[in-house]
């Protein structure tokens, strides 16, 4: 399961998806909106995706991980739109016979997701907004 959603993500849905009688280990990762970033007080985050390509690239992360490690199943759900503090923007679950593969594949998925899956994050903080990921951040602050 590799999908985008504009609703809160339920980890139990991912767990049900990766569950398997042969899986002795599940590693999950949840990325959530923090109340601060580099000294700014965050109000919320806004996520925007390139639909179609984003899901395709998420699925590719799963395929790549399955080539590198012995995993059973992977699921990634990314939330789009406004995500308040404390709520999850992304959840990843990976099942595997043994824990080493589950941990490594889960870490790989989130690290690579942040490098090349076409999803963008705008920080809405007290005093302004800024797109995260721009090498020259302030130039893309919007009033």
């Amino acid at each position: 399961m590799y999908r985008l959603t504009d609703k809160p993500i339920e980890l139990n849905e991912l767990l049900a998806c990766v569950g398997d009688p042969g899986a002795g280990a599940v590693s999950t990762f949840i990325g959530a909106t923090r109340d601060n970033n580099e000294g700014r007080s965050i109000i919320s985050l806004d996520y925007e995706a390139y639909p179609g390509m984003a899901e395709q690239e998420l699925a590719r992360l799963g395929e790549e991980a399955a080539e590198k490690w012995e995993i059973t199943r992977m699921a990634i759900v990314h939330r789009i739109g406004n995500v308040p503090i404390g709520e999850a923007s992304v959840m990843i679950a990976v099942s595997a016979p043994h824990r080493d593969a589950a941990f490594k594949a889960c870490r790989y998925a989130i690290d690579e997701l942040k490098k090349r899956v076409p999803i963008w994050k705008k920080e809405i903080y007290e005093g302004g907004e800024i797109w995260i990921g721009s090498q020259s951040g302030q130039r893309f602050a919007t009033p």
Partner: protein
Amino acid sequence: MKVRVKLFAMLRERAGAGDAVHEVPDGFTVNELWNRLGDVYPGLSGIDLKLLYAVNSEYVERGHRLADGDEVAFIPPVSGGSPVPVDRQAVERRMTCTG
């Protein structure tokens, strides 16, 4: 020929448009299209972001030649969490692997 241009995030905001069809000369490259967009949307000119380029949802190099009906996406630095510089090498290895 006609190509569909997708702009996202800061690019979309700077251009004031996220999805538009443009008429371009046959054999135009992604890079030539990007330069053309700088004329169409003044907000995009002079941007010094490292962009990635996708045609029909697959990453390509900037010299990639377009075909009629292509959907071309200009992808500014992505980030789902703490700012991480885009690892161009990893992306290029990936592009090589998937043809």
